[in-house]
């Protein structure tokens, strides 16, 4: 039973399989490593939410081969990426670049967080101010209140 369960679990384990075929792999491991790194950042335009490293689409394969060709020709990683974005635009980059048109994308969450923080601070300060003005929360206990409190605490201990 345990073995069966284990087998079932193993069968269900998601495997991070790459779509790179053996005939695409470069002989130089350093170059191949760079190719894999670049491929992971490039979107497959046919399936859109996979990188070309993950996708089995023919276009993804063509682009993987192209990336390796450019690297073998001596391009830097950045040159390979701009080679592809020159043809397909920034959309192929799974990591959007930081520039004027994507400013809101990158800065937006922090701006919203800051607005929320300021609003919370203002609200809390307003509440404290109101409490002080009312004088209720900070006034010392009267003799009567102290006796009742002591009685309650004793009852709690017993």
């Amino acid at each position, binding site marked *: 039973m345990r073995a069966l369960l284990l087998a079932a679990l193993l069968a269900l384990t998601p495997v991070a399989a790459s779509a790179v075929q053996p005939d695409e792999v470069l002989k130089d491991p350093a170059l191949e490593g760079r190719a894999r790194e670049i491929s992971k950042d490039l979107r497959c335009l046919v399936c859109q939410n996979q990188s070309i490293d993950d996708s089995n689409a023919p276009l993804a394969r*063509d682009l993987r081969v192209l990336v390796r060709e450019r690297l073998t020709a001596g391009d830097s990683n950045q040159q390979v990426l701009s080679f592809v974005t020159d043809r397909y635009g920034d959309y192929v980059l799974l990591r959007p670049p930081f520039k004027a048109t994507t400013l809101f994308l990158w800065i937006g969450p922090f701006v919203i967080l800051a607005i929320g923080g300021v609003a919370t601070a203002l609200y809390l300060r307003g509440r404290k101010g109101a409490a002080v003005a009312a004088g209720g929360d900070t006034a010392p206990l009267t003799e009567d209140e102290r006796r009742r409190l002591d009685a309650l605490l004793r009852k709690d201990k017993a």
Partner: protein
Amino acid sequence: MRRLIYLLPLLLFVGVGVAFLRGFDRDPRDIPSALIDKPAPEFALPPLPGHKEGLSNATLKGDVTLVNVFASWCIPCKAEHPIITRLAREQGVTVRGINHKDKAEDAIAWLNRNGDPYASIGVDLDGRVSIDWGVYGVPETFLLDRQGRIRFKHVGPLTPQVVEEQILPMVKHLRSAS
């Protein structure tokens, strides 16, 4: 005045809702081309066997040209084929083809069966030139001005609506402009 602040979440929600609703109308497959208003990439493609002329940058200059990327194995290409044929024969638009990753005999048989409206066809066997054009899904159609600059791109099969509302007005504009 202070009460208005309680309306803020509602307004925010409506704003986000409208933004999402508009997102439904957008086709996520419709990716803006990086090549609009840029000259067509440098390329030279051989003709199909038995045809005289292939396709290269030189062929694309001089007239407003529609460049259509097609393949015999591509079903939507067949659907748009009559529309492209009408554009060439009835509207007098120069249409040239890029035959994408196709077997020559299949492409020729396909053209014999469905008609050949193309002024010339370049054979892109390995799809490399298509990558230079930023093609990611056949069929794709580009409209080029007389200087050979890409001015418009449509991904997927052409429809009568795209032709009427976008391509024909653009052809007219480009012809009168230069």
